[in-house]
């Protein structure tokens, strides 16, 4: 397998879709875990308003572990409930 070693800024602005081709948003920033030396989650901007409850909306973070692939877009697992609550802990 070819290792995908890329500059982190390449992620910024990429569209995020679920495996069921639902648009989630765009990558605004990346949270990195300094001690673990890894990307922890993606901060989502330009969020798809139909996915989230505006009431308890505090911004959406996509944990790295639900990411399936990163290429021209970011492909993530389809977890509609998690987008509404912003809680990915049950996955």
């Amino acid at each position, binding site marked *: 397998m070819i290792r*995908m070693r890329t500059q*982190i800024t390449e992620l910024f602005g990429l569209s995020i879709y679920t495996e069921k081709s639902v648009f989630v948003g765009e990558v605004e920033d990346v949270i*990195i*875990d300094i001690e*673990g030396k*890894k990307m922890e989650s993606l901060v989502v901007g330009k969020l798809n308003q139909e996915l989230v409850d505006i009431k308890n909306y505090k911004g959406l973070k996509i944990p790295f572990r639900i*990411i399936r692939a990163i290429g021209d877009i970011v492909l993530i697992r389809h977890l509609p409930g998690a987008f509404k609550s912003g809680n990915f802990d049950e996955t």
Partner: protein
Amino acid sequence: MTRTLARSLSRKKIVTNEGKVIGTLKNIIVDFDTGQIIDLIIYPDPSFDTSGYRVEGDRLFITFEAVKDIKDYIIVDRYLSRK
């Protein structure tokens, strides 16, 4: 666990644990498959002696293994940062 936003690291100074300024952060190399952070890409200060470091053109590479902490500056281990 220490977390930080990638964008907030832009143009931060890289300093060794003995207090020597290496340069300014340009970018970070990551592995999209594993999520691992591999290297820092740095613009070295003109006064910094880059011998013993990985240099490509005007950029200097330091393994993320060398990073000790990130607050106002990025502190790297002076031995681990060389290769």
